C-alpha cells in the first residue's frame, strides 16, 4: 500500500453537553477511494462530517484531511474538499447560474475556467436550460442536482456527500453516480459519502465503515462485511451489525425547520 491516506481520524470524540455524539472513533480513507460511511439515524454521521469539514470543533482526538488539521488549518482544509450537504445550502433567491458563479468566486476560480465548468456541469445535470431561473422555482430533485454540480465545480481533492441522492429517482441517482465515479477515476477524487440506500453503498463504495451510537461497529469492503455476518446483501449485514431497534432522536432547531420546509412544499 503506497497510496496516501487523505483522511486520518484518530480517537475522535464529540460531546454536546452530556450527550456523546461521536465516541472515540478512528478510521482512514486512502486517496482515490469511494468510502461509504453508513449508520442509522442519529449515529453520528453528520457530526463526523461536520468535524472533518471545519464546521465543528472536536471535543477530543485528531483529524487530518489532506494532511491538514481542520480545527487549526481551516483555510487549507477547506481548499481541499467539496461538500454536498444533507440539507439544501443553495440560495433560493438567486438563479442556478448565480449560485454556481458565487461558488466559483468563493473558491477563486479564474473567470474563463469558471464559466467553462459551470456550463459543462449545468449541462451535465440537465439544468443548463434553466440556468437563469431562481432556485426557489426548482423541484427538490433539481435543487439536489444543482447542489451536486456546485460541489464539483472547484474539482476538489476530496468530496463529501452527505446523503447526496436523497429524494432522487433511480435514473438521476445512476447518472450522478456515474459522473462521480468518472471523476474518481480521472482525477483520483476521493469520495466520502453517507447514505441510507444500502444498494447504493453496495454498488459504489470501495470500502465501508458502519457507525452506530457514535461508535464504529464494522469496517471493510462490502464483501468482508457480508462474510462477517454471513449475509446475502449489505442491508442484511447492516441490520445485523446495528440491530433492529428504531432510533429516536430529539428534534433540533434544524429538524423543526426541515418539517416546516416539508409543509411549505
Amino acid at each position, binding site marked *: 500500500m503506497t497510496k496516501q491516506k487523505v483522511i486520518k481520524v484518530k480517537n475522535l470524540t464529540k460531546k454536546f453537553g452530556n450527550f456523546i455524539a461521536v465516541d472515540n472513533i478512528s478510521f482512514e480513507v486512502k486517496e482515490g477511494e469511494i468510502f461509504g460511511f453508513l449508520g442509522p439515524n442519529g449515529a453520528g454521521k453528520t457530526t463526523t462530517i461536520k468535524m472533518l469539514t*471545519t464546521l465543528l470543533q472536536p471535543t477530543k482526538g485528531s483529524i487530518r484531511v489532506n494532511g491538514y488539521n481542520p480545527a487549526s488549518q481551516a483555510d487549507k482544509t477547506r481548499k481541499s*474538499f467539496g461538500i454536498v450537504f444533507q440539507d439544501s445550502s443553495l440560495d433560493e*433567491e438567486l438563479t442556478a447560474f448565480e449560485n454556481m*458563479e458565487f461558488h466559483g468566486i*468563493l473558491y477563486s476560480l479564474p473567470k474563463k475556467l469558471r464559466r467553462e465548468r459551470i456550463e459543462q456541469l449545468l449541462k451535465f445535470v440537465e439544468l443548463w436550460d434553466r440556468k437563469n431561473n431562481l432556485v426557489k422555482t426548482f423541484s427538490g430533485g433539481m435543487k439536489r442536482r444543482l447542489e451536486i454540480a456546485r460541489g464539483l465545480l472547484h474539482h476538489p481533492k476530496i468530496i463529501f456527500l452527505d446523503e447526496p441522492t436523497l429524494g432522487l429517482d433511480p435514473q438521476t441517482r445512476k447518472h450522478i453516480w456515474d459522473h462521480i465515479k468518472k471523476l474518481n477515476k480521472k482525477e483520483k477524487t476521493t469520495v466520502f459519502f453517507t447514505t441510507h440506500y444500502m444498494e447504493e453503498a453496495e454498488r459504489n463504495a470501495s470500502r465501508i465503515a458502519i457507525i452506530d451510537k457514535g461508535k464504529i461497529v464494522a469496517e471493510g469492503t462490502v464483501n468482508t462485511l457480508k462474510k462477517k455476518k454471513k449475509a446475502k446483501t449489505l442491508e442484511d449485514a447492516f441490520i445485523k451489525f446495528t440491530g433492529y431497534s428504531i432510533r429516536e432522536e430529539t428534534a433540533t432547531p434544524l429538524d423543526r425547520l426541515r418539517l416546516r420546509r416539508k409543509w411549505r412544499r
Partner: protein
Amino acid sequence: MTLSIIYVLWLRQIKRYFRSKSRIIGSIGQPLLFLLALGFGLGPIYQKAGGGNYIQFLTPGIISMSILFTALFSGIEIIWDRQFGFLKETLVAPVSRLQIMIGRTLGGATVSIFQGIIISIIALLIGFHPNWSMFPLAIVFMILIALFFTALGTAIASKLEDMHGFQLIINFIVMPIFFLSGALFPLNGLPKALLVTAIINPLSYGVDGLRGTLVNGSHFGLGIDLLVLGVITTLLLVLGAYLFSKIQI
C-alpha cells in the same frame, strides 16, 4: 482575490434585496406611515407649541428609522441563511469569516442607505427643505447608522439558533431604540429618565447628526455625534466580526 470575494457577498445582498418586492414595499411603507401620520397629524400642535415645522423636525428621525429597520434586518438575515442552509456554503469555503462579515455588512449597509435616500426623496415631495450644503455630511451619518445596526444585527444573529427570538428582538430592541432616540420629539426639556435613555441610545446620535446636518438644531453638537457614532460603530463592527467568527453549525 479578497476584494472579489467581498464584492460577490455584497452583490448577493443587493440582488436579494431588489428581488424581494414585498420587502422593499414593506420597509418603505412603515416609515412612510410614520412620516405622513405623525408629520401631518401632530404638525399643527407642534407649530402651535412654538416648535416650528414638524415635517422639518421629523424627517431626519424617519430617515434614521428606515435605516435602523433595514440595517438590523440585514444583519439578522444570517439567521435565515443559517436555517435555509446557505450559511454553510459560505462557511466551508476557503475564505475568512472576516471577509464574509465585511461583504455582508457592506451589502446590508448599502441597502439601508438606499432605503434612507428613498425616504428622503419622499420627504422632499411632501415639503421637506433640507440644508443642501451639509448633505454630504448627512450621507456620512447615514453610512454610520447603517453600519452600526447591520453589525448589531450580525452580532445578535450570530448568537441566535433560530427565528423564534426574532420577534423578541423587534419588540425589545428595535422599537425602544427608535422611540427613545429623539426621532419623534426634541430632547430639550425631557424628563431626566427619558433623557438618560436617549443619551445611552446609539440611534440618538444618528438622528441628532442627521437633524444637525439637514435642518440645523443638533442637540449634542455635530462633533460629539460624529465622534460617538464613529467610536461605537467601530467597536460593534469588531464585536460583530468576533461573534460571527465563532459561529458553529
